[in-house]
């Protein structure tokens, strides 16, 4: 084995553990800081529960963003996909089904089907027509947004059956339902990425598409599946979002779009593709949530939270950049 390969491996190891260690340190530090600043309220059940209610929306959308970034792409249409899927589900429930159970089941089906279909359309454009992902999904974002506005005329569709509201607001043995959905989805995506042939191919396509092609992988199929997966994750986010708001609208969650990129990158996902793990993403989501809940308890302005999120991202990128440079030198 030549020295270059060994050096490469050790560099990769420091990169991998370095990033998780950086994130872990920031997580512990953030947690301690927020607890110190709110000694009484921060560890209360109510606060922990409210964090568990808030995290999943951004979490699912960030997962949807992450898988496309691992493939070397990006999905700018995640929020508009979620809104259209949510509107589809809401329209199904408004159409007056015979029983509430049937109505909820059909609504879930509609949300997932619509979002999968949108993911499929993105995948076709990116994998088969070879449109750059950022452009295809930018156009898709505007188009879906438009369709949502046309369907709703810009108004809110509200009022869902209790069974549906449970998904976003219910508690199972004291644990909020949305976080259970998120944990299940994150575990599924983690398994898919780490333990299946598809996951392996996904990292390969993201690292070097040409080499992957020559290795006998059908890149187009991998990309198509990736964008369908991304779409379905948006559909799940949509279900939780409209259930929590008890309404669907064309412009919910618009500010999430760039925050999902922030969360993914903070969690170690590379914008150039090929790198990114669910564990890192979950750590970064928890950091962001701890910051926002802690600052909220301090009655800080919501925009201070945004500023601090941005500052944390810069800090992590700078630290990782310096670590990578030192690791490369030694």
């Amino acid at each position, binding site marked *: 084995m030549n020295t270059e390969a060994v050096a490469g491996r050790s560099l990769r190891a420091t990169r991998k553990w370095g990033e998780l260690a950086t994130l872990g340190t920031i997580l512990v530090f953030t947690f301690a800081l927020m607890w110190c600043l709110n000694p009484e309220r921060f560890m209360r059940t109510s606060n922990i529960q409210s964090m568990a209610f808030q995290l999943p929306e951004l979490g699912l959308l960030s997962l949807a963003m992450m898988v496309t970034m691992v493939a070397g792409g990006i999905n700018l249409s995640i929020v508009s996909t979620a809104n259209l899927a949510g509107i589809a589900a809401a329209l199904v429930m408004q159409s007056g089904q015979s029983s509430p159970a049937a109505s909820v089941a059909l609504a879930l089906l509609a949300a997932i089907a619509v979002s999968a279909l949108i993911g499929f359309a993105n995948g076709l454009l990116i994998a088969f027509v070879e449109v750059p992902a950022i452009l295809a999904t930018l156009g898709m974002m505007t188009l879906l947004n438009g369709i949502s506005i046309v369907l709703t005329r810009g108004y809110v569709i509200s009022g869902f059956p209790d069974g549906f509201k449970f998904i976003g607001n219910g508690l199972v043995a004291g644990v909020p339902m949305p976080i259970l959905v998120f944990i299940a989805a994150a575990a599924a995506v983690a398994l898919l990425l780490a333990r299946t042939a598809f996951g392996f191919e996904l990292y390969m396509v993201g690292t070097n598409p040409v080499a992957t092609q020559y290795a006998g992988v059908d890149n187009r199929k991998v990309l198509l599946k990736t964008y369908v997966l991304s779409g379905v994750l948006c559909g799940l986010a949509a279900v939780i979002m409209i259930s929590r708001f008890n309404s669907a609208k064309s412009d919910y969650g618009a500010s999430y779009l*760039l925050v999902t990129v922030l969360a993914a990158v903070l969690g170690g996902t590379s914008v150039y593709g090929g790198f990114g793990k669910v564990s890192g993403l979950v750590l970064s989501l928890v950091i962001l949530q701890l910051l926002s809940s802690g600052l909220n308890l301090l009655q800080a*302005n919501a*925009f201070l939270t945004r500023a601090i999120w941005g500052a944390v991202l810069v800090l992590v990128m*700078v630290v990782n950049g310096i670590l990578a440079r030192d690791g490369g030198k030694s």
Partner: protein
Amino acid sequence: MKRIFRSSETYLLLVIVAFSAVIACINPNFLTLENGFDLLKSYSFMGIMAAGVLVVLISGGMDMSFAAVATVAEYVMALVATRLGGNILSSFLIASAIGAALGLVNAVLVYRFRIPTVIATIATMNVFYGVLIMVTGGKWIYTLPDWFRSFAGINVLSLDGPNGSTYGLSIVTVVWIAVIILSSFILRHTVVGRGVYAMGGCGSDRGPVERAGFDVRGIHLFIYAYMGFLAGVAGVVQALLVQTVAPNSIVGKELSVIAAVILGGASIAGGTGSVAGTVLGVALIAIMNNGLTLMRIPSYWYDVLVGGVIIISVVINALQARRKHRKVIEIERSKA
């Protein structure tokens, strides 16, 4: 001649002419000078920011923070104008200086710490905007000084309308035209401008650009400072157009400006794009928007149409690129 037919600007111009013909058939008011001047005025804000985005895209970079930068510059400018006074020149100076300074922050993150441009600018967007709203509480500024108000009303070229009203080429449009000329000159005739193209052509690899003798650091500083400078100018223009300063009026428009620049033929991968194309891209967006209104199509169809046009145009571009690629392969095969 062949080059003219192949350029994306030509296609875009044809699309614009076709669109305009359809709109003009349905509502003849579209082809009046008054409507034209009005569009040139109200889209100067987007056009100025688009020129900055173009420079960033040509270099192979991406900027998500320019709307936040424009907001910060606009807000501080308005605060100074209302509290301390000044004149229109000082307003432009303050806003563009703030914009350039914030742009330099991006440049340092991108050049010194090698943070990918999308990420660096998403981060700074959150920081700039978050701090602004936190400090100001998000309050709107309604009462701008009289000199600010009257400057916005100046027409360089005045014409009398049929019903006694006057209209003409607004001073705001002149600012846009100045930005177009300046950007075009820098990109085509200066070393720094050619360096911007060179950087985009080499992807994210700085080596070849450095070996070609370009000052890579200087080019980075220029790109993001220039984007910030134009964002600052655009901020003042926005305040001139609307005459109120709302901190949430610009943020969120990043992607539609980027879409206009891409419609204008700039490539996300860097290395290609022209000021003329960008102006046409903005014009297409403006005409589509205006046309829907004039054709009495409900405004909620607007996004469907724009999204459709973006998708169709990127698909056509992708298919063309593939055909070109195949031709190259065929030529190489026939040589072998």
